Structures are given as structure tokens and as C-alpha cells.
């Protein structure tokens, strides 16, 4: 059973190369492309002082600057929480944002819960691919 496995530098949620690979993987994912065509959602990934903002619109995920929208989803967790989520085979209760939100005191959907639920299918597709071990569609057994 894979446990707590860090795949990035200890002072960052994930490194720049990881981010680039993730964004590309999401934008190349056939299910994401189909499901996100009418999606328009902005979300932040936070850990301590570190915040990264992303936007899904018109079938694409992109890094962006925080807008003045009041409909931004904020996913906030400690380095430890994000690291557990990103483990190649995450442990029980760490395999999904909703599982961590419910069972970890150091992780939460800190804002925009309604928008997260509203966009759950697309958000989940994108966030599952954030895991470096996420299978590439078409090569999955």
C-alpha cells in the first residue's frame, strides 16, 4: 500500500513541471473535453501562504490571476494533506476532495462549496489528474 509519498519540493504543493504536465493532461483528456464545454469556474489551490488560481472555461484548464468574482472555489489544505492527496495510490479518506473535506481537520473546501458541487464532475476529472500517477486515457488497463 502506497502511503505518504512526496512528489514535489517540500515547500510547494507541487512543482512547476508538475503543474505544466497536469494542465496538459487535463486539456488532453477526452472526458474532460466533453464534460467541460460549458463550464465556467475559477478555483484556488491553497496551502499556507501559497495560492494558485486556475480557471476552467470553454473546455480548457488554465492558470490565471484571481479575478474579482465572488464565485471562486477555494481548496485549502496543509502540505501534508495535499501530499497525501497526491500519493500515487492515496490512502483511504485521502483519495477524493470530498473525502478529505469530511475526514481531515487540515483540509477543507474553504469557500465556494456550492460552486464546487455545481461543477463537481469537471472539478473531479481535473483534480484526479493532478495525481502524477493518474492513468493516461487510452493506455489504461
Amino acid at each position, binding site marked *: 500500500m502506497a502511503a505518504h509519498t512526496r512528489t514535489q519540493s517540500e515547500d510547494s504543493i507541487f512543482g512547476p513541471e508538475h503543474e505544466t504536465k497536469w494542465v496538459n493532461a487535463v486539456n488532453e483528456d477526452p472526458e474532460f473535453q466533453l*464534460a467541460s464545454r460549458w463550464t465556467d469556474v475559477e478555483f484556488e489551490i491553497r496551502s499556507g501562504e501559497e495560492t494558485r488560481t486556475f480557471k476552467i472555461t470553454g473546455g480548457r484548464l488554465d492558470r490565471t490571476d484571481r479575478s474579482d468574482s465572488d464565485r471562486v472555489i477555494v481548496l485549502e489544505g496543509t502540505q501534508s494533506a495535499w501530499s497525501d492527496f497526491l500519493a500515487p*495510490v*492515496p490512502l*483511504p*479518506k485521502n*483519495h*477524493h*476532495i*470530498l*473525502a478529505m473535506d*469530511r*475526514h481531515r481537520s487540515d483540509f477543507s473546501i474553504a469557500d465556494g462549496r*456550492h460552486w464546487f*458541487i*455545481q461543477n*463537481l*464532475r469537471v472539478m*473531479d476529472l481535473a483534480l484526479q489528474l493532478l495525481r502524477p500517477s493518474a*492513468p493516461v486515457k487510452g493506455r*489504461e488497463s
Partner: protein
Amino acid sequence: MTDFEPITGRYITVEIAGEPNRIYFEESGEGIPVVCLHTAGADSRQYRHLQTDPEVLASYRVIAFDLPWHGKSLPPGKWWEREYLLTAELYVETVMALIHALELDQPLVVGCSMAGSLVLELARLHGAELGGVVGFSGAAKVNGRFHDWPLMPDINSNQVVPSWTYGLMAPQSPTEAKKEVWWMYSQGGPGIYRGDTYFYSALDLRGKEEQIDTSVCPVYLYTGEYDYACTPEETEETVFAVPGAKGGRMPEIGHFPISENYALCREYLWPALNELKSSRAARTSPQQSIEHTVRTS
């Protein structure tokens, strides 16, 4: 040669809470009846792997039905004028009405999720009529599955409900099977998943566990370690609290064992069914019947 599956479907009208309900059920196999209960907001298709398992069908008559409001069963009359909120009383009455209508003798009952909890109530209230129960993803008390968002106009419940339940499955389970669970969940009526979780969240059998007589109705309870709705810890507590109950935690599987990874689920279900078959035979043997008659005469 056409490769037909052994499953056949029929409709039956059953009176529940004083109203006729048109129920759809599917069955396959011959032998000891096994009544299979689907999860919240889903339908009997979840049991298609069990219902096509040749080894199972050689000894068991496997029956799975759609609850009213689900799958191919219709809602009762004037459904559009009432809110669907499943209660324990209605759920128990529905299952027992079907068992009586089909004239099933000492059936085994298998349930998952809300039905994994319901089997405890069935064992408590109707244990003498049953041959035993197997519950997956159930416990004496499960918190926090009832929400209003499935009925909100800016929520597309057709996609959000299946995505909400998708996360309850294990990363190790086959993607094809998990996507099939997602697909079934995309087909529920508006508010039906919500109405089912009303029961799942409201049922509280804590303190009543000792009312279940497992010498009359044996109880098996299992929950996957990736289930974060009904946690394995909650199930283990219930197994401990019900005298004589068996079961526990299943590694590398989530909330929908019977459909998200049937092969792995079978490692737990098949031995449980066979143990129940043996205990049922012991209880219903002629010698037992004679002894029962002597004791009660």
C-alpha cells in the same frame, strides 16, 4: 447462436402503505432465494454480475428488484404531488411485501449502502422470516448523506449525483465498473437519491443492536476501506455491537462493492452466502422443525 444472459425480468403489483405499486424485478438461478437490494438513487442493475455468476446461480435464486420510484418500477399514484422521503417503516414494508408476494421461504437478503443498513432493521424486526442478511456499506448509524442540493435549480443532478457518489469508490477498482456505477446514478429521478439518503442518514439503531438475534437471522456486514460515507470503523462498531454478527473491513474497495469490483466483493459475499445456506439448512431441517413444534406446543 445468441448469447442470452440468464437474467429475466417481470413486473408485479404489490400493495405498500395501502397503495398499489408496480414493481420491476429480475431473477436468475435456482435454489435458495437471495433478495438483493440496490443502493440509494440506483436500481437493480447493480447486481448484474452476481446475477450472471454461474457458480452462484447453481445454488441460489437471485432476485433483484427496483424500489418504487427507481429504475423500471413506477412511483405510486399522484407522485407529482408528494415529496419522496424514504422512511425505515416504508422501506421495511416494501421489502417484506415483495418477499411475501413472491412467496419466498426464508430468503437471504443482500443489501448495499442504505440497504446495507436496512438489513439490520430487517433482521431486527423480521429475522424469523429470513435466512440471514449480508450488508455492504451499512452500519447502525451513518451520518451526513442527506442534502438539498440535488433539487436545486442551478445544480445539474443528472451529473452531480453520480459524481458525488463516484468519489466513494476505490482508486484500485476497475474504471469501467466505476463508470458503470456513475452511469446508473445519472438515471435517477429528481430528488430520489436525496429521498433515499433521508432514510440512510435518519436510521439510528445504536442501542438496539442486541435486539438482533443472529441465532435466528445471522448477520454479515462488510465495508470497503475507501468508503468515506459509511466508514469501515462504523461498520466494525456495529459488528461488535450485534451479538454473533460477522464481517468487517474490506481492503482496496469502496462504497459499491457489488458493482464497483464484483470479483473482489465475491471473496466476501460467496463465503457468507454459503455459511448462511448451511445455517439456514440447519434451522429448517425436519429435525429442527419437530423440535420447534415440541417446544412451542
